[in-house]
């Protein structure tokens, strides 16, 4: 894959930006913040119409056979609009795991509905504060799947979850169908992410992959999701940079636009640096899917995108002064999203440690 978008990718970029902006409704998104376990159906319907849900899946299962670069482009547009549904990322992650299962019936059962977006999937790897524990406490036995997975994205809506567990003492990826009594929906600061604690008590589940291969797959799936998320973060950070810029050229204080004050203009210029570095890392990472250096590239994208979005959220609000902290301004939609995306797919420290292990061979 090239670092340069080709014509069709440029088309996807402008079109997805247009659609994401068109169906973004600040009032609806603000309302979602105070509703527990809901999501932005309007956005999701458009995403399905546009075929974004099918983008990175094989034709054999109703997909469009495109790659991470294309999905990343869409994710960036969704991030810019603080889109109110997490399934682009979670369905993609679950599908990437399912594709590696030998169970064709399982694949036929779930990949087409994931491609069409009528099904929701969650990826439940984390336990405690670890995004991917070496030895998960969740167990798959003949009795079924047993264990707890905290704060699972889309856990409130998903019909299925790809679960990181231990099967006969070996790490494994497992597919579990979710029933409502298994989920405790969380009221959070970014409610449209569908966070829920999942609790499995001898739940029916089928094995996807086991052993070291399962660990490699889990890492790869997490890295792929992280690259999608990094695009979303970069889109959000870029949107905030422009919001700050537009405000700084119009808003006046002491008789001139506040953008003429270096404390404001340099702060926005620094955001430009963070955004461009994150963008370049994102495109590079997406272009490396399936390559041996993919984990490193994903980590670099993830780290720079998280820093860009968190910083942009902090600074864009600060540039706005009082108006920036009002509910109506909606800037806190980005602020909240910056935080939730910084935690989904593993926080900064976890990615720092993974990257350094890859670079040096020394574990934390």
């Amino acid at each position, binding site marked *: 894959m090239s670092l340069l978008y080709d014509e069709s990718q440029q088309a996807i970029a402008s079109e997805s930006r247009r659609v994401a902006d068109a169906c973004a409704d600040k009032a609806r998104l603000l309302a979602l913040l105070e509703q527990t376990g809901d999501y932005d159906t309007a956005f999701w319907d458009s995403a399905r119409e546009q075929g974004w849900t099918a983008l990175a899946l094989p034709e054999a299962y109703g997909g469009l056979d495109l790659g991470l670069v294309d999905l990343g482009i869409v994710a960036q547009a969704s991030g810019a609009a603080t889109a109110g549904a997490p399934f682009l990322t979670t369905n993609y992650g679950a599908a990437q795991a399912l594709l590696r299962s030998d169970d064709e019936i399982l694949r036929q059962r779930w990949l087409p509905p994931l491609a069409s977006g009528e099904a929701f999937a969650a990826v439940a790897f984390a336990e405690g504060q670890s995004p991917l524990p070496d030895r998960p406490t969740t167990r798959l036995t003949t009795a079924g799947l047993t264990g707890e997975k905290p704060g699972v994205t889309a856990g409130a809506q998903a019909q299925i979850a790809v679960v990181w567990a231990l099967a006969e003492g070996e790490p494994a990826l497992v597919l579990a169908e979710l029933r409502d009594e298994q989920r405790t929906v969380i009221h959070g600061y970014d409610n449209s992410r569908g966070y829920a604690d999942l609790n499995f008590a001898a739940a029916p589940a089928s094995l996807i992959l086991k052993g070291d291969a399962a660990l490699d797959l889990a890492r790869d799936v997490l890295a792929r999701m992280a690259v999608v998320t990094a695009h979303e973060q970069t889109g959000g950070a870029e949107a905030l940079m422009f919001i700050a810029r537009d405000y700084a050229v119009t808003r006046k204080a002491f008789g001139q636009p506040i953008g003429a004050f270096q404390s404001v203009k340099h702060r926005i210029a620094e955001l430009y640096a963070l955004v461009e570095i994150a963008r370049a890392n994102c495109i590079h990472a997406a272009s490396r899917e399936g390559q041996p250096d993919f984990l490193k590239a994903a980590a670099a994208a993830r780290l720079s995108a998280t820093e860009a979005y968190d910083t942009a959220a902090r600074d864009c609000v600060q540039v706005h002064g009082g108006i920036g902290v009002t509910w109506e301004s909606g800037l806190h939609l980005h602020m909240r999203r910056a935080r939730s995306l910084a935690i989904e797919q593993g926080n900064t420290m976890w990615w720092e440690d993974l990257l350094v292990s890859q670079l040096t061979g020394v574990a*934390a």
Partner: protein
Amino acid sequence: MTDLNAYRENARAWLASVADQFGRDARRGLAVEDDLALGRRYMAARFDAGYAGINWPVEMGGQGLGHLEKVGFDGEEMSFGMPSGYFGISLGMPVPILIRFGEDKAWVKERVLAALKGEEIWCQLFSEPAGGSDLAGLRTKAVPDGNGWSLTGQKLWTSWAQYCDYGVIVARTDPTVPKHKGLTYFWVDMKAPGVEVRPIKLAGGDSHVNEVFFDDVKLTDAQRMSPVGGGFGVAMTTLMIERYVATDSGGFGPHLDLFIDMAREIEVGGKAALEDGRVRSAIARNYAMRSGLEAITRRAMLMMEAGMVPGPEGSLNKLVAVRSRQRLSELALDLQGNTGLAFDAHAFVKEDWASSWLNAPTGRIAGGADEMLLNTIAEKILGLPQDHRPDKAVPFNQIPA
């Protein structure tokens, strides 16, 4: 100091005795109105116990004690989480200004007593939509009207205005002179006809600040608290008082101990978070920063006790502490990862990391944005030149909007 310690002892004892009634646990989960009602009862009890207006003159219903007793009591009170916040601005700025500049002393004393008992609340009507950091750029105007004035305009970011009985306000009485020179300072009856208060919901979900609209609100000339055109100076006095209102090295967020307690329960990469260099660095640097700010405050107290004027370094507290609180709160959420996604809109900012993080930006803007504080330090303390200000010395009505 031993007297002061004894004073704090007694204060703590009294606060402990009413903690069940008014303290943090009694308030948990209360709607704002109920919490305010509880607050009014607390203020009455505090007045009766002799802890109201601690450093105010006795003839004004105060206790006639020193600033140190006041600060000592505030520190103790803060640790009990008493519902006194609604009255902080009222007693912090407007009422002291009233005592200082109010003409009719009998009437003033009536107001002061009511304010100390929590029966009446005063707000401060400074910021405006066009203004923000630029106080002198305000547009609300007071035009002569018979023997008095007619007030028309809009104020913004007025804390607790929806619960206030009175307010102090700065309005433009002469648009033909440079902007600092055309302002006059009044007090206003918030229940008077033509006053409309609209609460503003903030990012965290609460609505303690307001838009306040004035439409031909009548003021008698007795409500004027500064010479005509002399309002900017009085407003500045108010803001100076603001700086010396109780500081908090935690930036009004959770204490560092709470971060350490949280970190004890957390793992980073399968190891105890407290063993991780990144976490240790954050704790150590925050401790160093906070202990420095606390030493600055203690030194200022000692100087005041010794009758000296404390140095300007007191102005650092808000700038440094709130900014650091924002980053530390972010880190706390990061560390909790998937186990820290829940959010309770009624949680206390000083106890809950999500609330602390979500409300931190307000702290960095309210009462002087970081950039304004840096300008003040640079210009007033270090003597660096003022920014270019095209509107300087230009008649207000000739500044391009």
